[in-house]
């Protein structure tokens, strides 16, 4: 579905991504794991159109989407749940969900119901300002907001960051559920254990290069991965 070919990105004067090639097959959960500064976030931000690559191609199905503006990429069906959730604190929960569907002109009722069924807590709080939600609820809202654009591919940047272990478990079970309903997932995580458990395909990223590939299970049992990322 998504093909990344020889992607290089300069970010803040250094080459953060040094020519990576990988694929996200349709309906799978794919994860990129790696330490801080490995280039994971930069990769997702480049796919989302926030950063322009210096070389390489990004293809969605057959179409070349390299260097397109973020709004066009959203309209192609790719969405990013940003690191640190970044909900709009002054907007209500409902407004946050509606703004996720900013480019859509059709009725939102069905999708609102869908998101509320995934996250009943958001329905209870739909009139509350998003800034008053707990961290876990804000993460749910960020995922719900992304789903409101009806994405084919949902990218997630460190969804477990700063959340309690129980909440992380909840979030991951929702990710699986969303995936079973047909949304392809590209996930990056420092919490490699959780990510590898749900991933169909996994890549290890080290200082801007992909060093290992396999199914989630293969990497879970890989000695090098165990040593470096699973502690």
């Amino acid at each position, binding site marked *: 579905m998504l093909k990344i070919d020889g992607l290089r990105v300069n970010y803040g004067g250094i080459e953060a991504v040094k020519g990576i090639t990988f694929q996200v097959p349709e309906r799978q959960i794919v994860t990129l794991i790696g330490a801080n500064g490995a280039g994971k976030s930069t990769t997702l931000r480049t796919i989302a159109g926030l950063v322009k690559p210096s070389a390489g191609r990004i293809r969605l199905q057959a179409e070349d989407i390299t260097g397109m503006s973020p709004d066009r990429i959203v309209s192609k069906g790719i969405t990013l749940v*940003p690191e640190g959730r970044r909900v709009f604190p002054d907007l209500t929960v409902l407004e946050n969900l*509606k*703004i996720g569907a900013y480019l859509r002109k059709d009725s939102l009722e069905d999708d609102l119901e869908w998101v509320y069924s995934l996250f009943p807590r958001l329905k209870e709080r739909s009139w509350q300002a998003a800034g008053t939600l707990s961290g876990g609820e804000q993460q749910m809202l960020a995922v719900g907001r992304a789903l409101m654009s009806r994405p084919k591919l949902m990218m997630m940047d460190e969804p477990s960051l700063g959340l309690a272990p129980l909440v992380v478990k909840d979030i991951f079970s929702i990710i699986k559920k969303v995936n079973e309903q047909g949304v392809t997932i590209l996930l990056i995580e420092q919490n490699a254990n959780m990510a590898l458990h749900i991933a169909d395909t996994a890549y290890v990223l080290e200082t801007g290069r992909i060093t290992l590939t396999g199914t989630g299970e293969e990497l879970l049992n890989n000695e090098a991965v165990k040593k470096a990322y699973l502690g």
Partner: protein
Amino acid sequence: MQFALSIFLSGISLGGQYALIAIGYTLVYGILRLINFAHGDVFMVAGLLMVYLSAFLGSFLSPGAAIGVGLILVLALTVALGFAIERAAYKPLRSAPRMSVMISAIGVSYLLQNFATYITGGLPQTYPALPLLSNNVIIGGVSTKVVTVVTPFLVAVLVIALTQLINHTKVGMAMRAVAKDFETSQLMGIKINNVISMTFVIGSALAAVGSMLYFTNYPSIVPLSGSLPGLRAFVAAVFGGIGSIPGAVVGAFIVGMSESIIKGSPFSIFSDAFTFALLIVILVVKPTGLFGEKVTDKV
């Protein structure tokens, strides 16, 4: 009593006119964190446009029609000017430090003033009498122009319309989102440049309406006519808490009223000194203004 009434009338009318300018400062600041120093000069250009357009249109339209068409054209051209300034002077500096954008704004301000001097030859231009607005009425024994009475109501209508737009429409939601977080707004598919242009369009339109009300009360316009009202409106926006629309309106009425009171006292020569002393006091006592948000990273 009559004296007090006349002070009050001129105070709220002045306050309303400042409010229309102050909203332009506060909207742009809310989104770009930029103090748009050229805003007062856009207000002046709107006044000059009315002078020249009414004379030009008057040569082949009836006087009433010339004014009517003139008002609409002034509104449209002022909006176009605000839009063009943003695209030419601020947009290319989107990722530059904020200080650079501010200096660009100061540059645009001088550019507009000098251009106006070139066009007018520095001579005061007589503002055309607007039908109805320029007529005199007598309220409670005080003779004043209709515009004085109309201003607060017109301002109220425009402010209510604007808050409805911001709080209850999709564009308004996008404006609130962009004001908080450029990058996440882009991820939602919002074209932030369009939203930023929109704030300049709204601000310029309000400044154009403000110029029609303001200059009706004054005999003539000079190229510097925008700078003091602009500064006072800026003080009003800071007073109310820059970034907040209700704040700008309340601040403008306070600045307008105090200016009117001092101009009616023996100390009238100090009226501007008082306005700016007020600014210093606010900045010392409550740096975020009456309704301002707590933000740590301001210029």
